[in-house]
């Protein structure tokens, strides 16, 4: 019998104790660094090794998927094409009206000194990892502190708000998506007659909950929800989504609203960071 087998379990299984202590220390250290907005070198090192090949693998699979899509979806593509043509015609009309409104909006915006905020350059980033852990609605993107990304930088796409950066390494950043249960964003109904204000929260499902609305709040299905600018992280006016359903809450003192995010979180490939 080996001497190891004769020794007490506590000595024989030293490694588990070592790894548990090490894991705890790394976790505490990580949280401390995070709280101070400092970078975690362990995380940065691991991401430095894993992120580039993961990004390359994602690109290759995306390219392959795009090349073979027609094989499996040929009929659906033709139908979708027809629908899109109709939609383009509809949007062109709408676009002309919006352009006129945009001119007025730009002038007013200048007057209100929002130029600096809106004119800030956006940093384009690839999505390396989307929901790597099924429990968390997080993204890993291909830009980090050396590109000017900071904790609490806001992340958007052309369609609307994606979330905010909560951690950065030199070459990558972690983004908390709106749908994560720890996410909360000040929100407002865009319709001029309403302008009701609440908080949009995620619960790791595909829809958001708009909470904190009073019972008298003027809100209805298909209202567009934008950021309110309250809270200090998200700038005002970024599109969050559209109201799916409005319900009175149990005590009838407020309303519970389900919001469908404008951004398609399941197919995010590129995002923009507002530094």
């Amino acid at each position: 019998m080996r001497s190891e087998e004769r020794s007490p379990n506590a000595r024989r299984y030293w490694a588990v104790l070592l790894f548990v202590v090490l894991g705890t220390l790394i976790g505490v250290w990580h949280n401390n660094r995070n709280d101070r907005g400092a970078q975690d070198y362990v995380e940065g090192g691991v991401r430095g090794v894993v992120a580039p090949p993961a990004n390359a693998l994602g690109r290759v699979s995306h390219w392959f998927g795009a090349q073979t899509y027609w094989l499996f979806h040929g009929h659906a593509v033709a139908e979708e094409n027809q629908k899109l043509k109709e939609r383009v015609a509809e949007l062109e009309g709408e676009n002309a009206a919006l352009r006129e409104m945009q001119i007025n909006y730009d002038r007013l915006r200048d007057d209100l000194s929002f130029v600096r905020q809106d004119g800030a350059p956006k940093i384009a980033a690839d999505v390396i990892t989307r929901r790597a852990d099924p429990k968390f609605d997080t993204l890993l993107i291909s830009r980090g502190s050396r590109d000017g990304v900071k904790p609490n930088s806001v992340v958007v796409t052309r369609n609307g708000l994606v979330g905010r950066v909560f951690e950065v390494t030199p070459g990558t950043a972690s983004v908390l998506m709106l749908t994560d249960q720890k996410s909360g964003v000040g929100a407002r109904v865009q319709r001029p007659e309403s302008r009701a204000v609440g908080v949009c929260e995620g619960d790791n499902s595909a829809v958001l909950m708009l909470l904190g609305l009073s019972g008298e709040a003027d809100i209805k299905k298909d209202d567009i929800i934008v950021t309110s600018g309250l809270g200090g992280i998200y700038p005002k006016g970024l599109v969050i989504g559209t109201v799916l359903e409005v319900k009175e809450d149990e005590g009838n003192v407020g309303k519970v609203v389900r919001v469908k995010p404008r951004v398609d979180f399941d197919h995010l490939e590129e995002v923009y960071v507002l530094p």
Partner: protein
Amino acid sequence: MNPTLRRRLICALALFLAALVQSAWADAMRFHGAKPDFLVLVALLGAMFCEANESAALGFFAGLLMACLAAPPTSGFGSLIVSRTLVAFGVGWLEERIFRDNALIAVIVAACGTALAEGLFFVFTPQHHIGHWLRGVGLTTLYNALLALPLYLLIRRCLGPRPRPDEF
């Protein structure tokens, strides 16, 4: 090559590949809301071929990789590492005493191990929406159990049958 070194290298490579697959494809592999967790799966199945201390190391690095790739926003970094370390160690330890190198055991280990790892994570870092969390864990557990058999056979092909205790 020394069999121990070979086994450790293969396990390290398997973890690295699992991290790549998890990063690039796991979300796209979603089926009715169920998503796989390849890192936990490789740690659990790899632990079936390792001794307990090596299994703990496998779990530790699986947790560290997951924490670095999908770092939870406010807490849970250490919880991911510790929960995976403990569960992988448990599999390695049980394999020394009760389990035998068996495909059915692999499926059971994948299912129970995934649920236990997530349960431990919950104990260390409680989640707000328990219903959603339970549903997510249940679906991931099922997905991992389905993937366990092919992955087990692949790992077994690479590592060979589990060595006898005196061969470690």
